[in-house]
């Protein structure tokens, strides 16, 4: 009697357990897709700001692969599909938050590059002007220094 009761209880648990695992809903898929889109917008902006977005793009593609895997397995392994969608969403959210830092680094690097380029251009122009103004004088002094030991002899 007790064994039969246990078997019935186990069967009920199995039925309840199997009903608890339902396929991922379209809303869950839309949520993951939306997270990826938001992350992409942030990554694109970070790239425009000059940030190095290589690792972020790799992670975004990982998130997309998880969404596609979830889509393929949703009918056969719904619980795994849900896990994959959650992983994809959190991956995309992580990418989105990292993108702000990458954008900031890109802006700083671009500012430094701008300052370096402008400084280099100013130095080049300065050297050219100095060469134009003092070039003759410097050339003559160098010439004299080089040939100071020479003696001009009258030939013939």
């Amino acid at each position, binding site marked *: 009697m007790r064994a039969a009761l246990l078997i019935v209880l186990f069967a009920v648990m199995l039925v309840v357990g199997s009903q608890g695992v339902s396929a991922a809903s379209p809303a869950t898929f839309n949520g993951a897709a939306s997270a990826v*889109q938001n992350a992409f*917008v942030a990554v*694109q902006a970070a790239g*425009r700001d000059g940030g190095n977005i290589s690792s972020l793009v790799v992670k975004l593609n990982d998130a*997309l692969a998880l969404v596609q895997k979830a889509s393929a397995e949703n009918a056969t392994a719904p619980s795994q599909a849900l896990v994959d969608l959650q992983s994809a969403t959190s991956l995309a959210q992580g990418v989105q938050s990292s993108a702000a830092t990458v954008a900031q680094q890109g802006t700083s690097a*671009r500012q430094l590059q701008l300052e370096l*380029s402008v400084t280099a*251009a100013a130095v080049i122009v300065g050297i*050219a002007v100095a*060469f134009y103004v003092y070039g003759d004088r410097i050339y003559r002094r160098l010439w004299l220094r080089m040939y100071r030991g020479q003696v001009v002899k009258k030939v013939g």
Partner: protein
Amino acid sequence: MDRETGVLALAVVTILAVLAAIYPILPANGENFSELGILGPGQKIAGYPTTVAVGQQFTLYVYVGNHEGGAGYYQVLVKEGNQATVVSNSTSADLPPVLTSSLVLQDNSSSIYPVNLSMRTAGLNQRLIFELWMFNSTTTSFAYTGLFAQIWLNVTAS
């Protein structure tokens, strides 16, 4: 070398040096475009299947390239059509996709990946149409890029 020639040479050298110094901060100027291609089972532009049975699995490779001047979020939609299907550089085929794949590409990068496909409808001159769609950050939706590729297949009943 007379003085005028020297001044001219100095000016040319100065201009070139200044251009080299500011080159990294000049905005990139070029035509922006994306690429889509279908490769055969050997990842070459050859060896495409011409006859398959309904439900028979075969593998092709999709090539996507990004030269849009920034990161691109792409979708490749594979659609099964026939001779009557209308698709052009301005209009996508009005058919539901049998396969959708998504990828993000950095500027000046490309990707080649396999797709496993099978045909559902038997008939002569069936078409597998590959369309490239791109995410538009302003409208937050995917838009047809006008790029499509296709292979023609004779599909026999299994």
